[in-house]
């Protein structure tokens, strides 16, 4: 589903602030893989997701989604394959527009947008049903401006928007990190439910090691712009946080563990 070959990206090249964020990264995802991504600050996790999403062009290497080479495809065109949820709950929704309008824009992602009414009666009925599944009481607030919702509600709506038309690949960039623990757990549970139901191929960055072990069928660790650990199946299921840290230390030469990762 996703094939990344020898991906390289250096920010501010040729200056004293030059930072190699991706350093020859290889990654292949099979159809239906739910991969959790961990790594210290500056390991290149978000850079990897942004590269796949097409926020900027990589310096070298290729990215293929479902057999299509998207390396040079602009961000908005690539969006037809992707569903994205960001760390900042403000980022994924249009605050001054209604919930139904946001969902409508997302539902028509990848289609030719037409000069017909954006939110029709049938759409409203459908949105009401899917919003009811969130159990946040949003089904009766279709006409509410998204900007009036809480961070957790907005993130749940963004998740719905990302998955509404079954993307080939779901990109989650620490999408629960900015939420309080209770809301974070709820959004994560919702993520699990949707990914499993629609069998979505997913890349989820998290800084929570327990979450990284508990979710998905495969776990990768990044360090200095590369994948240094890649575990899946039974091996991943039986992992403990201690083993993970040991694995990490071993693979990275000891330098990659920082406070933020140990915290959880």
């Amino acid at each position, binding site marked *: 589903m996703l094939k990344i070959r020898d991906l390289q990206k250096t920010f501010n090249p040729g200056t004293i602030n030059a930072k190699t964020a991706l350093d020859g990264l290889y990654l292949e995802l099979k159809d239906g893989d739910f991969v959790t991504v961990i790594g210290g600050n500056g390991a290149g996790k978000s850079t990897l997701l942004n590269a796949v999403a097409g926020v900027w062009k990589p310096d070298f290497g290729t990215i293929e989604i479902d057999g299509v080479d998207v390396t040079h495809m602009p961000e*908005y065109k690539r*969006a037809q394959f*992707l569903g994205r949820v960001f760390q900042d709950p403000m980022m994924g929704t*249009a605050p*001054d527009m209604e919930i139904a309008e946001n969902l409508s*824009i997302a539902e*028509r992602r990848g289609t030719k947008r037409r*000069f017909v009414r*954006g939110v029709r009666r049938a759409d409203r009925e459908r949105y009401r049903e899917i919003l009811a599944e969130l159990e946040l009481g949003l089904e009766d607030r279709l006409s509410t401006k998204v900007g009036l919702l809480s961070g957790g509600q907005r993130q749940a709506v963004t998740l719905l*928007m990302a998955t509404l038309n079954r993307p080939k690949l779901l990109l989650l960039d620490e999408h629960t990190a900015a939420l309080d623990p209770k809301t974070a757990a709820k959004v994560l549970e919702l993520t699990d439910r949707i990914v499993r139901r629609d069998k979505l191929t997913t890349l989820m960055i998290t800084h929570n090691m327990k979450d990284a072990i508990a979710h998905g069928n495969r776990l990768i660790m990044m360090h200095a712009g590369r994948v240094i650990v890649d575990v899946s199946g039974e091996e991943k299921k039986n992992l403990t946080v201690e083993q993970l840290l040991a694995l990490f230390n071993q693979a990275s030469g000891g330098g990659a563990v920082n406070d933020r990762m140990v915290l959880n």
Partner: protein
Amino acid sequence: MAFLYALPGAAAEGLIWGLMAIGVYISFKILDIADLTVDGSICTGACVCAMLIAAGVPVWVSVIAAFIAGALAGVVTGLFHTALGIPSILAGILTQLILYSVNLSILGGKSLAAIDPRANKLIVHMSDNPRSIVAMVIVVAATIIALWLFFYTEVGLTIKSTGDNPHMSRAQGVNVSLNKVVGLAVANGIVALAGAMLAQYKGSANINDGRGAIVIALAAIFIGLSVSLKIKPNFVVSLIGVVGGGIVYYIVYNFVILLGLKTDYLKMLSAIIVAVFLAVPYLKAEYFTKHTSLHPNAGGDANA
């Protein structure tokens, strides 16, 4: 008494500037771009309309041509901004300067083009204010209805989201650059349409028409929204409010003239009105937010 006599004229001219403010509302409020093209494109609309009518072209064709000319000006600003990466405010200023030369050449190197109201069936003219008001109400209503239909289509929603959250828009497959160009084209098209009406109303197009137009439009927008957002914060009510703001602006304008203020100071007055409306929300938040010295829980629950 003199004030009452001035009212119909103020209403007619206010409606024309209200139409112009609708155009600026699209760029300023919907696209979130302070588009300074409009000072030029309103004049372009006036010049195109006046020259075509003088050349014997039917009035309605001249008006449509003015709209198209304004839309092209918007496209130029849009491309400066999106294709060439020029900051939007500078892109607008550049186009505005370009338009000064363009407008001069449209006027054939002169600074003024007159329209003879007796030889042509004009849509609006200052000699017949009641008729002008009715005509302008129809034009404004048609514009609002067209925009209302447009901005609730699939395409229209993405233009709104482009201004509201470009990041989200791109992630949802929206071509943000294209949408900005389209939005600026529509905005400046409407502004030029207002310019065409202004030229007819006054019976002439002047190279200096439109200087400071953006400020008048912003004043209309702020006056209008300060009322309409309190009534119902939706699209149509906002647009009606903006037009109302234009009328209020012109009534105040005429009132101030009658009070004996020298017309030299009117542009300054416009600027001050806009500055006040922009400053009030900031000042409120910065200096007048109540700060309580009590802990939020204090005095509530004794066990807290």
